[in-house]
């Protein structure tokens, strides 16, 4: 069965520190990859996504992620975090093209990031 693993459940950083959140998935076919963010008291928002093409994708607020197919990974990075990045981060995967219309997302358990000012 498909699954998504996020290695870090809780991360605490100081402002200006660099961030890397790990995400690995298990599925042998074509996948679409997503990172969503949930700020305190807000709903899930799309941070970035990968469907095809350049494996290094850039999202909002200075975030980027790199798809490494051989490692089944899609790690999220930011060179310098801010206090406002404090949030819950979720990695998610769904089937890519030729897999029917249902694009149900398979989710990691999330990583809680706290950035200290």
């Amino acid at each position, binding site marked *: 069965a498909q699954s998504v693993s996020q290695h870090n459940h809780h991360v605490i950083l100081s402002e200006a520190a660099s961030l890397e959140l790990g995400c690995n998935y298990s599925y042998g076919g074509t996948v679409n990859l997503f990172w969503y963010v949930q700020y305190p008291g*807000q709903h899930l928002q*799309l941070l970035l996504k990968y469907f095809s093409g350049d494996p290094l994708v850039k999202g909002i607020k200075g975030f980027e992620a790199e798809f490494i197919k051989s490692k089944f990974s899609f790690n999220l990075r930011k060179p310098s975090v801010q206090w406002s990045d404090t949030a819950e981060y979720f990695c998610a995967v769904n089937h890519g093209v030729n897999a029917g*219309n249902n*694009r*149900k997302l398979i989710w990691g*358990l999330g990583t809680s990031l706290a950035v200290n000012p």
Partner: protein
Amino acid sequence: GAGVSQSPSNKVTEKGKDVELRCDPISGHTALYWYRQSLGQGLEFLIYFQGNSAPDKSGLPSDRFSAERTGGSVSTLTIQRTQQEDSAVYLCASSPSETQYFGPGTRLLVL
């Protein structure tokens, strides 16, 4: 523009009662998904609607759960005879194609 809206935002009910949760998707989005976010279990898929096609109900945890989507727009998730393990945040998402856009969720507490 308007995003996905859900109502109620919070619902407290007694064990054994039925509840109805509503989702208003983004206009023009043909696909609609329901997910459940439980403590310690992350987000799990419940049901998927696409246009006029038969819904994919493969994620519904029991026959107490049902959902419908009227006119290809508004969707209602119904939980009959609620149990304490149904307590969770129920999220709705709509999608024009690949990317899903989420509503704020309904936080359900079953006492």
